[in-house]
């Protein structure tokens, strides 16, 4: 009994998305049957594409890695009460800085790998900090400035790799940096599988964030600032400092997301490779679906990644056209975002409560 009552509040943030997935799947099934395809078989292919065997599982996790890191970054900013829509720019700047550091800085091996990671983290963090500074110093609304700074960062990165730092070897057709030296690559977790150490970093980041918010005074300050900035400053929280720190770390996590993509998957910065898949928006969705809960964000990131790898599997192995799988994806997301289940949950528990006392 005791255990149960203490588990429920802990599980509640996770429970809601799970029940909602069910409703999403039912809706997705309708979409598939409208497309004239067998529902069960299609879902089976989707499942296989995402988790079907160890290989697919690891590719799902590899895909979830940047989403998770971005999601955590966005979640942190949310917690501090600011809306950081700049994950894309922060990620791209982190990635391009890391790639350039990896190619042009001297040294090799694990020391350099850490250095490169730091460069990526700092670049992303500083870009985000810049938006925070504009807000703190000049009251330039963060919501808009971060959105705008994305374009600037992406264009700037594109300039860097299509002109001064372009890889001139090979076909030289692509705007990209040179390939990184193998010694700075993030090792794969399993031979021949796509998931790399970045995933471990991301999961660790989620756990650390969870612990920070639950148990530290810094986490407490961020949380209170997000809840009510007046209350926080009244209580002696340095509003500007906490906001700027949160923005820095938020951007740093996005920068890290870009960096692990470079170090763990692509081994170089390729113009457009990070923006194309819409990682930033997916990360944002992961956060929002999980209500900015760090562990929840980790879970929803994997889920959203699975939807994507699942859709690839669907595309590879069935006649369901690519577009339909993206329709199914969005329908699923749409329904999972709905709060229907939470309402039901509440009503149920209320009814249960009154029965108990009558």
């Amino acid at each position, binding site marked *: 009994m005791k255990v149960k009552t203490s588990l429920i509040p802990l599980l509640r943030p996770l429970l809601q998305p799970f029940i909602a997935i069910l409703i999403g799947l039912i809706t997705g099934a309708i979409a598939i049957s409208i497309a004239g395809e067998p529902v069960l078989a299609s879902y089976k292919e989707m499942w296989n594409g995402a988790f079907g065997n160890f290989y697919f599982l690891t590719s799902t996790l590899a895909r979830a890695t940047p989403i998770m890191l971005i999601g955590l970054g966005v979640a942190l900013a949310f917690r501090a009460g600011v809306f950081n829509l700049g994950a894309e720019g922060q990620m791209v700047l982190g990635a391009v800085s890391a790639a350039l550091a990896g190619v042009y800085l001297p040294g090799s091996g694990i020391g350099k790998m850490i250095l490169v990671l730091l460069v990526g983290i700092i670049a992303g963090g500083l870009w985000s900090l810049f938006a925070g500074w504009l807000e703190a110093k000049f009251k330039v609304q963060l919501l808009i400035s971060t959105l705008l700074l994305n374009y600037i960062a992406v264009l700037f990165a594109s300039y860097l790799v299509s002109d001064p730092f372009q890889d001139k070897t090979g076909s030289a057709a692509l705007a990209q940096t040179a390939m990184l030296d193998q010694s700075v690559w993030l090792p794969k977790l399993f031979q021949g599988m796509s998931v790399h150490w970045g995933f471990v970093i991301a999961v660790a980041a989620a756990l650390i964030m969870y612990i920070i918010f639950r148990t530290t005074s810094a986490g407490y300050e961020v949380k209170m600032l997000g*809840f009510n900035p007046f209350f926080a400053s009244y209580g002696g*929280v340095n509003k500007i400092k906490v906001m700027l720190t949160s923005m820095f770390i938020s951007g740093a996590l996005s920068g890290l997301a870009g960096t692990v993509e470079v170090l763990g998957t692509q081994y170089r910065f390729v113009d457009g490779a990070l923006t194309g898949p819409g990682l930033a928006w997916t990360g944002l969705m992961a956060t929002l679906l999980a209500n900015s809960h760090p562990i929840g964000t980790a879970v929803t990131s994997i889920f959203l990644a699975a939807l994507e790898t699942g859709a690839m599997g669907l595309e590879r192995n069935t006649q369901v056209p690519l577009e339909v799988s993206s329709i199914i994806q969005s329908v699923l997301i749409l329904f999972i975002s709905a709060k229907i289940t939470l309402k039901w949950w509440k009503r149920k528990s209320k009814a249960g409560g009154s029965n108990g006392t009558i």
Partner: protein
Amino acid sequence: MTTRLEMKNMTKMYGSFIANDTISLSLKAGEVHAVVGENGAGKTTLMRMLYGMERPTSGEIFIDGKRVAFTNPNDAIKNRIGMVHQHFMLFPDFTAAENIVIGHEPKQAGFFNRKKATELVQELVETYQIPVRPNAKTANCSIGEQQRIEILKVLYQGADIIILDEPSAVLTPIEVKGLLKTIRQLADQGKSIILITHKLREVMEVADSITVLRNGKVTGNVTKEQTSVDELAKLMVGRELHDLTERVQMNGEAILEIKNVTVQEKDNKPLLDDISLNVNRGEIVGIAGVSGNGQSELLQVISGLRSVKKGSIHLDGKDMTNQSVLSIRDAGLSHIPEDRYLWGAAKQATVEETGLMGYHKKPQYRSYSFLRKAPFRKLVNSWIEKFEIKAGSLEEKAGNLSGGNLQKLIVARELGHETPILIAAEPTRGVDIGAMEYIHEALIEKRNKGEAVLLVSSELSEIMALSDRILVMYEGEIAGEMDRQNATEEAISVLMAGGNQHESKN
């Protein structure tokens, strides 16, 4: 008089918590019916059900003998019920007239006839003798005027039953007088009024009948003639009230010294104009004044939330001018803020988190930046016990606490800092008399320990009861100062209204 409203066996449950337990109440035309009770007794909850904002778990409502069921405020409004909420429901960027007519706007072919609205409001102002400037932007109106806007709004909507939830809590004494007059007038014109308040003197002045709630149950239903302030208090609190503790003579040195402080925004009129004052150890200094005369700014300046342009602030001999909130708190200041929802708490934070503010960096409750929850929980639980704070659990959201209970939590938190000086701004706003007694006791106790309190209150009786010395603020200046012995309500009122000290002495 005919019975206009009947509520029968109203029950409201939040989860397994019973906020209202089979409450019945009836209201006649032209009657003022007071509902009193401790914080968290369920007064607001009862009214929210009557106004369609909450659905009763069980119970029945009859209007003019007809059974009704409300699903939203619109249903209540249609049945001629109006409510003035404890926290106003106004649109800050709209004018008074716009706020009053919204929902039933005068229109011409779909266009909003603002001129007509102004006229209608002006008419209302005259009919009911409730002064409001129709074209003033609401954000720029005083609290009193905002409340009058709220009252005019329900009158405009044609309400016959008007619910007022703690209407006097935020008003100045003069405004309260005006309000009570208005209430009486409205009743005489045939309106029925439900008045929720903690101020029993007001109840005795204006109410015809009274319902007393405790722990969600009715503990008394009396007419004014049958009862007295003391009896009501006993019904509410369930015990007798005591007199305040004796105050021991103290002659402490200055702990807070404010010299020539000026605050000015751009080229506007200064908000604080060359203010100097001292607070000594073992002393309660009361600041009286109509709200909006610089009290808020003064407190913000002292606590570090606002910077000064000129002048200095010394705390315990250290220069604290324009220092951060944190360093001022560390130097020995705690602060009960005037607006509990804006400054004092975060609605989404839990009770525990709300209590933790200011403690989260203290070594007793933190080791290596990790919070030590166990000792802190013990502390919060001791507050809850001492001040009888009604909270489901430490995990309850602060926003779900009743107004008074949240206030008690904040007071307990700030007293708990045990600093040499405490700023207490409206410390008992919205707090029931039992709790008010506790809080007053605690402040005196603090004084008697040789610590200092700077009390700001719009409640003259509170100032008079607690202060050793009384300052009156008017338009950003200190208009006068007097000792406990020679202070009279009349003298203070004159200063508050902008008269000078000589006039008041006469």
